């Protein structure tokens, strides 16, 4: 019997409130372990086919293959470590939202068609918003609001794309869209929807806005799933789309520049996510089997070391209560475990030899170089150096060293250290023996402890060896020299208590501006029209309607009165008396009757 790993977590989430205290923490740790076993036990194939939406064909709730399983593995492993880290937490909202969120991610990764994907996509968006709201601070409410708006927008792009694609191709199958022939409005919209979740500029501001405002454990979990699910979707749907190379390179550099400018340590890490996802997006753009496998391997290792970095930052936030580099420093004595385990993560993200980054990220660079793509390769190499600069050195330096601000706190709780240890272990283990990682890659064959063959669609095998002396030397050159630049130019890198304007300026400032403009224009027009038509015009019409008949009658009668000999004052008095009678309705009945007969006669005459 095949069990959908997502439902393990989603149904498990609903049962969380039944437990209390430590039992609840143990329960939420057990759920992703069960999900991991479920992923492991999944055979390849399509399961749970439903014909739920009439006219759209069959939905495949569970599509299991190597690509989906690779992501399934890392999602569940990361979730286990994250819930161990969150052992101290006694908050129902966070646990339930996190489980629903991770369940949604698993559902999206194992979705066999576009509609199932969309449903789980939206589940993820909602659950992650709840996770940000769980911090219950004013800033997190604002950030969560903007976050959900951007994600609703991305979801609408995705939905519009799915509907158009279905109309064009007649099927909701989720497979690779051909880069040459498959380009139409539908696929572009789907791509846009995926890129919003992958945090591609200009739609990336939500990440650096919302993730730092989440809770300590919430952000650890948030950092892994939305963007990597989007990466999975890109790998599945858009391999070889060249525009992704451009987008990926822009993301990689954009993340570094902004991370160098930021002050809040978690905002630095948020921009670092954009930088690393840029590598993956660029790899998908290249589209060869080597690059796609590199993207999967990189996603796997990235989730591990990024969670580790966020855990380290979270531990500092937990103990010190602050997250700005201008307020932190000198923690190396108080929190040595957080420092060293965080440093392992920092080295891993920088692809230092002996860490998992070195054995995974370099596949992407190797694949790009194989295809003779000089500019993307060069930009990714520069980005590799830049990563060491902002995440590998800047983050630990300013948080744990730099200036001693007198914080003397305890080390992080044991559960936090436990979670960090698990992830740090993987960082080192996969750096030394990448074999197990290589064996779950989609196109891998002949996997040994340090090498693998990646097989193209046309059967051509490319060999990749993780450990080569020359590769180690060149990588060490790159990294050590970038470390040197950090300390050479340290005076130019002094932290200031500022934030950096990102593309969210347009809707944060623009939104208010738009509202005020619309208010003035539309409500002003409304007021003018009201004053002109309703107040003045209607009044004028009613005045006319009241007085016109008597005026008309007077005009008719005045010559008669003149003929009777009335002049000037007497004529005026006669007219006034007539108006008064008209106003009071004091005409003799006979006169009114004659008038009515005359009018009807005229009508009769003119109607024939």
């Amino acid at each position: 019997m095949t069990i959908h790993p997502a439902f393990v977590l989603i149904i498990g989430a609903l049962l969380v409130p039944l437990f209390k205290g430590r039992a609840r923490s143990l329960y939420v740790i057990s759920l992703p372990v069960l999900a991991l076993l479920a992923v492991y036990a999944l055979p390849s194939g399509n399961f749970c086919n439903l014909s739920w939406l009439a006219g759209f064909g069959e939905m495949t709730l569970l599509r299991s293959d190597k690509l989906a399983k690779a992501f399934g593995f890392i999602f569940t492993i990361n979730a286990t470590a994250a819930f161990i880290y969150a052992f101290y937490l006694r908050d129902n909202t966070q646990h339930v939202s996190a489980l629903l969120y991770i369940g949604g991610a698993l559902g999206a990764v194992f979705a066999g068609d576009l509609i199932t994907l969309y449903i789980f996509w939206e589940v993820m968006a909602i659950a992650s918003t709840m996770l940000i709201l769980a911090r219950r601070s004013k800033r997190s409410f604002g950030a969560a609001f903007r976050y959900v708006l951007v994600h609703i927008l991305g979801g609408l792009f995705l939905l519009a794309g799915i509907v158009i694609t279905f109309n064009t191709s007649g099927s909701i199958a989720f497979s690779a869209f051909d880069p040459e022939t498959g380009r139409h409005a539908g696929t572009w919209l789907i791509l846009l929807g995926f890129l919003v979740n992958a945090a591609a500029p200009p739609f990336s501001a939500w990440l650096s806005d919302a993730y730092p405002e989440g809770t300590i454990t919430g952000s650890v979990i948030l950092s892994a799933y939305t963007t990597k699910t989007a990466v999975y979707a890109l790998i599945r749907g858009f391999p070889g789309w060249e525009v992704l190379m451009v987008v990926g390179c822009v993301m990689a550099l954009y993340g570094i520049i902004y991370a160098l400018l930021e002050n809040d340590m978690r905002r630095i890490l948020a921009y670092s996510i954009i930088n690393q996802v840029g590598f993956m997006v660029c790899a998908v753009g290249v589209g060869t089997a080597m690059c796609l496998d590199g993207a999967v391997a990189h996603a796997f290792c990235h989730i591990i070391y990024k969670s580790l970095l966020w855990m380290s930052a979270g531990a500092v936030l937990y103990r010190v209560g602050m997250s700005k580099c201008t307020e932190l420093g000198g923690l190396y004595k108080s929190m040595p475990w957080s420092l060293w385990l965080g440093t392992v993560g920092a080295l891993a993200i920088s692809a230092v030899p002996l860490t998992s980054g070195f054995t995974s990220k370099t596949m992407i660079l190797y694949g790009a170089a194989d295809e003779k793509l000089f500019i993307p390769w060069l930009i990714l190499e520069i980005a590799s150096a830049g990563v060491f600069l902002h995440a590998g050195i800047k983050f630990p330096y300013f948080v744990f060293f730099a200036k001693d601000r007198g914080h003397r706190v305890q080390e992080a709780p044991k559960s936090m250290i436990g979670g960090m240890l698990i992830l740090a272990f993987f960082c080192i283990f996969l750096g030394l023996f990448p074999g197990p990682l290589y064996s779950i890659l989609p196109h891998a064959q002949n996997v040994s402890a340090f090498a693998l063959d990646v097989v193209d669609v046309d059967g051509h095998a490319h060999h990749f060896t993780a450990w080569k002396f020359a590769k180690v030397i060149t990588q060490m050159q790159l990294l050590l020299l970038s470390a040197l630049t950090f300390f050479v130019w340290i005076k130019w890198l002094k932290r200031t208590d500022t934030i950096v304007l990102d593309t969210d300026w347009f809707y944060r400032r623009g939104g208010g501006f738009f509202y005020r403009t619309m208010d003035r224009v539309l409500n002003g027009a409304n007021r003018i029209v009201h004053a002109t038509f309703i107040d003045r015009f209607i009044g004028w019409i009613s005045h006319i309607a009241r007085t016109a008949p008597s005026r008309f009658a007077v005009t008719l009668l005045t010559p008669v009165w003149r003929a009777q000999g009335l002049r000037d004052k007497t004529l005026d008095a006669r007219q006034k008396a007539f108006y008064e009678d008209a106003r009071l309705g004091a005409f003799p009945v006979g006169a009114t009757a004659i008038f009515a007969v005359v009018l009807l006669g005229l009508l009769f005459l003119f109607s024939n």
Partner: protein
Amino acid sequence: MTSDKDTDWIYRKSTKKLLMRLLLLGCGISVLLELAVPGRDGKFGIDGWFGFYAALGFVSCTLMIFAAKGLGLWLKVPTDFYEEGETGDEDTAATSSSTLKKAAGKNAQPKDHAKKEAARRVSTKQAAGKVVKKGAKKTTRKKVKGQETRKREGGSQ
């Protein structure tokens, strides 16, 4: 400069010099080790040159630091840049709904107006001596006032 013995080992000038020297030594060794790998061919020619990666690392990181610095002159703003016009309420459940309205990017004017109204009423109440329930009254009145302003603006359509 206080005596080096007073400060922690890691913050002493002598330690910083030592660490810098070690780093420079490491850089030098990594470049020299390239001599031990003769005939390293780059895929693009240029990356086969001696010390290419070292040069790439240094130059690109320097450029990125200065590009970031330049961009920062334009884009850096104080941390509370987006919080101008906030009412400065505490994080309470009562104010969370009005905060959500604020975060919705609503016109700041009716809220300021509402705040001024509330403040004026509060001050007259204070003058009358009813200080006790000021906080709660202000909140609810702000909410009510906010709703009234919304009704007023919405109703004329």
